[in-house]
């Protein structure tokens, strides 16, 4: 069995699901951020795989991935900055305890 698009897509789905679980089930904001990064990477794999197998002559998928990476980096930066700011004020980054805006 040769490698095909489905392999990469399934891998992407698996990684995405793991990231999803992490993002929804963990208390620590940092871990959540890391899980989101995993999801981003999963998406990137899918993008590149599509690029490779569906339109091999074009690099559109890869271009998108570059932008995705840029946005991901930006997101991590701001996210971490927010986490640190919250931590300074509340001495915790447990998301279940960050509920001042609730109601």
């Amino acid at each position, binding site marked *: 069995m040769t*490698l*095909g698009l*489905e*392999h990469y897509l399934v*891998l992407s*789905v*698996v*990684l*995405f*699901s*793991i*990231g*999803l*679980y*992490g993002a*929804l*089930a*963990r*208390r*620590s904001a*940092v*871990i959540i951020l*890391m*899980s989101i*990064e*995993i999801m981003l*990477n999963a998406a*990137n*794999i899918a993008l*590149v795989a599509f*690029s*490779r*197998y*569906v339109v*091999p*002559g074009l*690099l*559109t998928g*890869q*271009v998108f*991935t*570059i*932008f995705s*990476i*840029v*946005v*991901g*980096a*930006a997101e*991590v*930066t*701001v996210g*971490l*900055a*927010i*986490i*640190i*700011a919250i931590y300074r004020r509340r001495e915790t*980054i447990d998301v*279940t305890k960050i509920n001042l805006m609730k109601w």
Partner: protein
Amino acid sequence: MGLEIAFWVLTVVAVAAALAVVSLHNIFRAALALILCFLAVAGLFVTLSADFLAAIQVLIYVGAVAVLIILAIMLTREVQRGSFSNRFNAPVLLSAILFLGVAVFAVMATSWPVVTLPPLEATTTALGSELFGEGGYILPVEISALLLLVVIIGAITLVREK
């Protein structure tokens, strides 16, 4: 054949590392697992003939993002606290598995318009002309630059001590 071995090895590493990220108690170790995962993904990019992307992946994710995350972990003294799951562990796990099932089913059930052409080999030049060339993505590139600038300023503002 080598490609397939590489794929499977990298896949196993990536999945295992990802699982480690979401399940390890020690946050610092989770961060290290994340780096491993990133590296595996970079490898996967190589198997997809996206060598330039693999390089970026290593530079940005492994180099910049991972460092940032570790820095944040240090600053917030999260290591002592450890990583716990919240109240919805089980339902979320179930949802994630469901999602996995449905998505895999969708992937398998869809007939993809796969083409059997060989991939471009020297992607760097091609990417460069794609991004900066005539009719390319120059505007999004500029916007990305602006975005990064905003992010830098924003991050500084957010974490600045009063």
